[in-house]
């Protein structure tokens, strides 16, 4: 029986009508009608302003939206039947939408976009987040130009954020990726990024997309593949980035699965052989050092973070015993026993904890998914410490702290190697 295609016949027909393009902008969506209109207009304006002569297409891979997301995206086409008021376009701009099967999954959306890029022979591609309320047309230029003009294969973003925005990135993903893959990628799990057609073709052909790895963490996989595959990578400063819905609590377990879990899994084939592949290039000059975004303070319930850390250490003790070294667990238990005002999760202890999780993941001590889930309370403890220590500091001082943490991850890398090789 023939393998089922991820591309529906209708979508394939639309791709045939689009034909070969120079630029493809992917837009993964799921019930994003509230914000996607602004995003798609910014994308369209960016394409018309900065790439008026290039053949471009907007590809919306939708996870089964029940709102008008797809209609909004489709309406942004520019053709001889569908003129955009006040926008003069030299050529037709198709904006097409498809629903991939299997329900909402970021990796499936990315796979659809990659497949479209391959079929349309797009040489320059980008993915933008449908909830990037700060996106400007200039983002499209900054993302695409290094790939289109300077032969970069992957461009990841640098954002200007609130100092407490993106804690998982600053406390874990950025430092560990930098340490283990020797690339200072500020956003290893990017919501906006661009990539070359050759990287798209290579990625589209991988087997990961039918696996959980691909379905939930395609972006991370793509970043790691670019690093380890010797592709030319770079970063661009885009601008302020803020969450669209700050009231919604983040599902930390889900986020860890999508990021740390994928990162750990990529180590299987790359660590410890991966080493410095060269410096990470800044593809375009950042607009100064990304400083704190001037937004309302983020309200975080630190007390609850602490409580969840303490409860996690207690409740998950049997699991943590199998993952962590006895000394590490003992230190954590001692810390958990301290009154909240005295609690502090040091950088060194945090790095050792993470590396022991990574090694346990490698050795499959227990179910890998359980390992990743068990990291959640520890992360909460680290986040509590970070928030507490930096309550009064400036964004620049926070950056110094993040840098110190990165250095600690790098210093302790030999420790992970030892664990990895089973010497401890």
């Amino acid at each position, binding site marked *: 029986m023939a393998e089922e295609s991820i591309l529906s016949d209708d979508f394939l027909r639309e791709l045939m009508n689009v034909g070969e393009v120079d630029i493809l902008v992917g837009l993964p969506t799921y019930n994003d009608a509230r914000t996607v209109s602004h995003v798609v207009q910014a994308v369209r304006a960016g394409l018309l302003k900065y790439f008026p002569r290039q053949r471009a297409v907007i590809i919306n891979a939708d996870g089964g939206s029940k709102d008008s997301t797809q209609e909004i995206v489709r309406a942004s086409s520019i053709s001889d039947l569908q003129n955009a008021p006040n926008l003069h376009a030299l050529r*037709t701009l198709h904006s097409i939408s498809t629903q991939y099967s299997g329900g909402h999954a970021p990796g499936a959306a990315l796979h659809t976009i990659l497949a479209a890029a391959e079929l349309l022979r797009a040489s320059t591609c980008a993915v933008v987040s449908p909830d990037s309320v700060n996106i400007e047309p200039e983002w499209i230029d900054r993302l695409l130009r290094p790939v289109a003009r300077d032969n970069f294969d992957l461009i990841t973003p640098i954002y200007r954020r609130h100092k407490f925005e993106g804690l998982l990135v600053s406390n874990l993903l950025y430092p560990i990726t930098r340490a283990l893959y020797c690339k200072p990628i500020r956003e290893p799990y990017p919501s906006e990024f661009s990539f070359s057609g050759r990287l798209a073709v290579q990625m589209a052909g991988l087997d990961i997309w039918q696996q959980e790895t691909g379905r939930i963490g395609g972006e991370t996989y793509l970043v790691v593949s670019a690093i380890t595959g010797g592709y030319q990578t770079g970063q661009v400063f885009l601008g302020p980035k803020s969450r669209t819905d700050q009231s919604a609590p983040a599902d930390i377990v889900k986020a860890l699965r999508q990021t740390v879990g994928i990162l750990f899994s990529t180590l299987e084939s790359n660590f410890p052989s991966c080493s410095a592949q060269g410096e990470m290039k800044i593809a375009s000059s950042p607009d100064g050092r990304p400083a704190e975004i001037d937004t309302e303070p983020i309200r975080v319930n630190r007390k609850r973070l602490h409580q969840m850390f303490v409860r996690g250490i207690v409740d998950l003790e049997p699991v943590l015993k199998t993952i962590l070294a006895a000394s590490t667990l003992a230190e954590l238990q001692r810390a958990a026993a301290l009154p909240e005002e005295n609690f502090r999760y040091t950088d060194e202890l945090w790095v050792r904890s993470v590396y022991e999780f990574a090694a346990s993941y490698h050795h499959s001590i227990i179910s890998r998914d359980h390992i990743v889930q068990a990291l959640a309370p520890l992360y909460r403890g680290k986040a509590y410490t970070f928030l507490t220590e930096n309550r009064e500091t400036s964004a620049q001082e926070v950056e110094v702290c993040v840098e110190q943490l990165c250095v600690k991850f790098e210093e302790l890398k030999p420790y992970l190697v030892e664990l990895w090789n089973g010497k401890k």
Partner: protein
Amino acid sequence: MTQLPDGLWYKDAVIYQVHVRTFFDANGDGIGDFRGLAQKIDYLAELGVTAIWLMPFFPSPLRDDGYDIADYRTVHPSYGVLDDFKAFLEIAHARGIRVIIELVLNHTSDQHPWFQESRSSRDNARRDWYVWSDTDTRYHGTRIIFIDTELSNWAWDPVSKQYYWHRFFSHQPDLNYDNPAVREEMWSVMKFWLAMGVDGFRLDAIPYLVEREGTSCENLPETHQIMRELRARMDQEYPGRMLLAEANQWPADLGPYFGNGDEFNMAFHFPLMPRMFMGLKLEDRKPITEILQQTPVIPENCQWCLFLRNHDELTLEMVTDTERDYMYDEYAKDKSMRLNLGIRRRLAPLLDNDRRRIELMNGLLMSLPGTPIVYYGDEIGMGDNVNLGDRNGVRTPMQWSGGWNGGFSNADPEALYTPLMLNPVYGYQAVNVESQKRFDHSLLSWMKRLIRARKAAPVFGRGSMEFLYPANHRILAFVRQLDKETVLAVNNLSSSAQAVELDLRRYKGNILIEMFGKNIFPRIGDLPYLLTMGPYEFFWFRLRKI
């Protein structure tokens, strides 16, 4: 030739544009002439054209290739005498080919006796035949057309010590159409040629006849009134003749030149032409469909004139700045190819001598609504010489054979009015009529078949047009319809093979008959009609319900 009863002959015409100087030299002086042109009428008849548009052939100092006329009532001595023209006219008519001559109403040469008289003194009876002024600030809002050479629309006359108005070169003073004597004289000139038997006039630089303060001095109501008067007089005294307007304007401004069917019979569709090239390069039908969507509906007895190239630069006046930059970058990277706001190149070089693209563009020319004009030499794929100044690079001698002077003239090569094309790609030894006549697959032979197919389907000249909008934007598809005749044209603007689904449900039950090979294609049903097309391929289908 007696005038055909159908006064709308121009709607079915296929026009061939030629300058007598460039076509064939019968007397061996290195310059084409009317006797030579008459000798080549058979060639044009074989090609299938039904009308010839002759560029200005009047006495002239030739500082603007004859558009600077010094005498409206005879023939430039280099091209023969008036009797030679009459003989040519008779032969053309005998072969069923009508003759359209060109008149420049807007201005004369500064060597014209009228201007010499006018400038001789401020009291001269013809002083008011031109537009004079003490200052050069009048009509301040009027654009300069020849921006590469002219700094102002006014020129100082040191003889009579006033400024005179000129929209083109300063040696081409504008006539004053506010003067009834000028209008009467120009009608007299037209009558002179109409009485001889010419079938129509291509009237040059029409939008600029009248000037008014505070306006752009273009497309003014007074200009339209003058043209309506001339048309009325022509229709009354010489029915069945035709006026063709050269008005390089936006579609909305072109509509009024047709009036209520009582002004011009035809007008060039200038904005369409660059967009055909743009659409081809972009591989996107959008520029073409958009400009045709903006094109006003014209009276039943009127017609658009379509062309790919002509004696001028590929004008980019009627495009946006973005579009112009794109066209320059794509079609005239070498800045020497640019002139004024345009590109001074011929069809074949513009299309990289790509036979498929040349065919596609000619296919569009012959199938879009309007009367097509073929510029001399483009039917064999002649090249251009950008090393010659101004627009002379697209006005080189017709290449008849690989022999002496390309068969154009027996004169010494040094005596030719301009050098022949000699390069290995476009030179007369590579590109000429004689060699192309030998083969059925030559461009010339193909053009004959194309013109034959066009003439066999009156729907192309007179039918309505409706675009289909297939989702594949690289495909330009439209239906032409006249009475019971329906033709479907499908054009692949892309350099690669394309699949396209056409919504033809309204023609359900019809079969398609491809008009060149006469092959039958599947019957139209309820499903989208699927066609696959090769790079730059086009189809013309006749729809038949059998």
